[in-house]
């Protein structure tokens, strides 16, 4: 690989002309080196589409929705009436907000550790397999290619309490399976099971992390008489902890937004006889916006979710700094 790559950290080069050919050999960081105006302009032209998109779909839309959250916006009549903090007060008073937030948290607390554990088990199995690992990796990955709607339509029938295949399978061992999609206590585990079927995304990332652990370390540990068990806990786990940490954060953010599966299993009919246990915050937000067409309230709910996710991520990063092992000291 050539010595000079397009590194981000590379200092800006001097203006064009013959002089720059010589000056670019100097690697030292020089203060206030002038940018090449043409190059800078071209750079901005290249990233212009993103700047426009970011401005429109992030800055303007988020600001606009923040403003709307203090209004009553009826989409059918297009009339906007300022109502102050009324929407936020409604959110605090509405017991369903608390229910839906509670459901969402319970789901995340169930789903994130279980999915990571299964992903890690699968990755470890593949990592240690002498042959066939590639084949099994493809097989485990197939569910990830299945659209949520197909997954839901199959699991809707597999999880059926009376005739579903899962209870039929449990029956072989003499276990009376629950009414998965009806019994409030089993609603969230049902969705977790659907999620576990598509666990391969995390598995692939963990497998890549496992393969990055230097083999010499295992050899050294073996020579020192460390058992496989203690190698796992004292070597593998610390070394892949940054990846685990990354997956915890990403998967938590995803779990807190759960919508597709819950909507498809319980709310697609538009009728409201779904159990309260299946009312997740994402579903409630959708109902406020697209069934009651109360966009002011929906905007307030979106902002509430944003703040909650931000807070949870911040806490996780704070905790992670203590638990995660970074090679070469405190790099971050």
């Amino acid at each position, binding site marked *: 690989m050539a010595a000079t*790559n397009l590194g981000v950290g590379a200092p800006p080069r001097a203006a064009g002309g013959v002089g720059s050919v010589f000056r670019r050999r100097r690697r030292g960081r020089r203060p206030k080196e002038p940018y090449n105006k043409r190059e800078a302009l071209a750079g901005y032209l290249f990233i212009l589409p993103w700047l426009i998109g970011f401005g429109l779909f992030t800055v303007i839309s988020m600001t606009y929705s923040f403003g709307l959250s203090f209004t009553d916006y009826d989409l059918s009549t297009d009339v906007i009436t300022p109502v102050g903090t009324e929407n936020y007060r409604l959110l605090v008073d509405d017991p369903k907000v608390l229910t839906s937030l509670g459901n969402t948290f319970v789901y995340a607390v169930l789903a994130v550790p279980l999915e990571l554990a299964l992903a890690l088990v699968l990755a470890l199995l593949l990592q240690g397999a002498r042959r066939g690992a590639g084949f099994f990796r493809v097989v*485990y990955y197939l569910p990830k290619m299945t659209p949520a709607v*197909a997954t839901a339509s199959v699991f809707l029938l597999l999880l059926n309490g009376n005739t579903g295949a899962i209870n039929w399978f449990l029956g072989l061992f003499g276990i009376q399976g629950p009414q998965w999609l009806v019994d409030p206590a089993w609603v969230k585990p049902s969705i977790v099971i659907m999620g576990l079927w598509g666990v391969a995304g995390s598995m692939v990332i963990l497998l890549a992390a496992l393969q990055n652990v230097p083999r010499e370390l295992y050899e050294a540990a073996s020579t020192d008489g460390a058992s496989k068990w203690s190698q796992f806990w004292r070597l593998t786990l610390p070394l892949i902890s940054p990846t685990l940490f990354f997956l915890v954060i990403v998967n938590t*953010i995803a779990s807190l937004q759960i919508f597709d599966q819950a909507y498809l299993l319980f709310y697609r009919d538009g009728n409201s006889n779904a159990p309260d246990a299946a009312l997740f915050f994402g579903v409630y937000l959708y109902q406020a916006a697209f069934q009651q067409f109360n966009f002011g309230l929906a905007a307030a709910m979106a902002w509430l979710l944003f703040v909650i996710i931000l807070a949870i991520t911040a806490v996780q990063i704070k905790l992670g700094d203590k638990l995660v092992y970074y090679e070469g000291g405190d790099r971050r």
Partner: protein
Amino acid sequence: MTAGIRTVPDRPEATSARPRRGDGPPGSPGVWRRRIGQGVRWVLMIGFALMFLYPFAWLAAASLKPRGDVFDNRLIPTTIVWENYVQVWQELPLVHWVLNSIIIALLAATLVTLSSSMIAFGFAYFRFPGRNFWFRLLLASMMLPGAVTLIPNYLIWKYLGFLGTNTPLWGATLFGSAFYIFLMRQFYLSLPRDLFEAARVDGCSYFGLFRRIAFPLALPSALIVFLFEFQASWQNFTGPLIYLNFGDVEDFTVPLGIAYAMTKYSPTAGGHGDYQYVMVASLLVTLPLLIIFAFAQKYFIEGIASTGLKG
């Protein structure tokens, strides 16, 4: 099959070459211990494989059953009804749905690949004031939850007058996507800068650097972006639900159509429980992705592994 999909491409023999605990002369207890270990591993791997494959087998079987048998949990139907596959095209406007899905997915994937590669090159090659600031902002925007921007973006599309069309489902891809920009930039950063300097000396324009040198070299990464976006668009349910659900049934995409069919046949909504048609449609929406994956699984898995680690 095994040759193309090794898990450790750069050191294929390393696993067997590694000295293991319990290595010893044949017949010693260590060898047996290792064999039992490998045996348990195989049993577990096959067990998991069956669990992951079962829903596919169940789906394929159910799609061939007569209405009354869908729930019988047999993997080989007692009566095979091939007519389901013919009938479903008359039962549901599947032709429209498939065409809509293909058009939207191709548009989204093509546009996002072109725009993201270009924007990524802007971040990778050019030096301009504020570059690091904008790039950090781009990274931060990846953490912005989709559920949060859903409502605001709906209002933007409404304001721009695009509600009632499928433009919102692919329009934003014109402006690139943070995740793909990050992925492409990582690739460009590995290219030697001298390559571009030489082209500049030869009189190549800035856009020429991208079109003639950077993009052709980045085609494997661009393919990853294209495949990811095609998959995401093909699987997208929330988007069509919000932007198309209030329009004509014929404008639906396949995922939204299946949700519609699930309701249509549901006995609680006045249907007759013809779930075999839902199963056929579910299989048809899954198959294209499975076929693409069969040919391009290397790109999917590499893309996820590399970006996941670096993200």
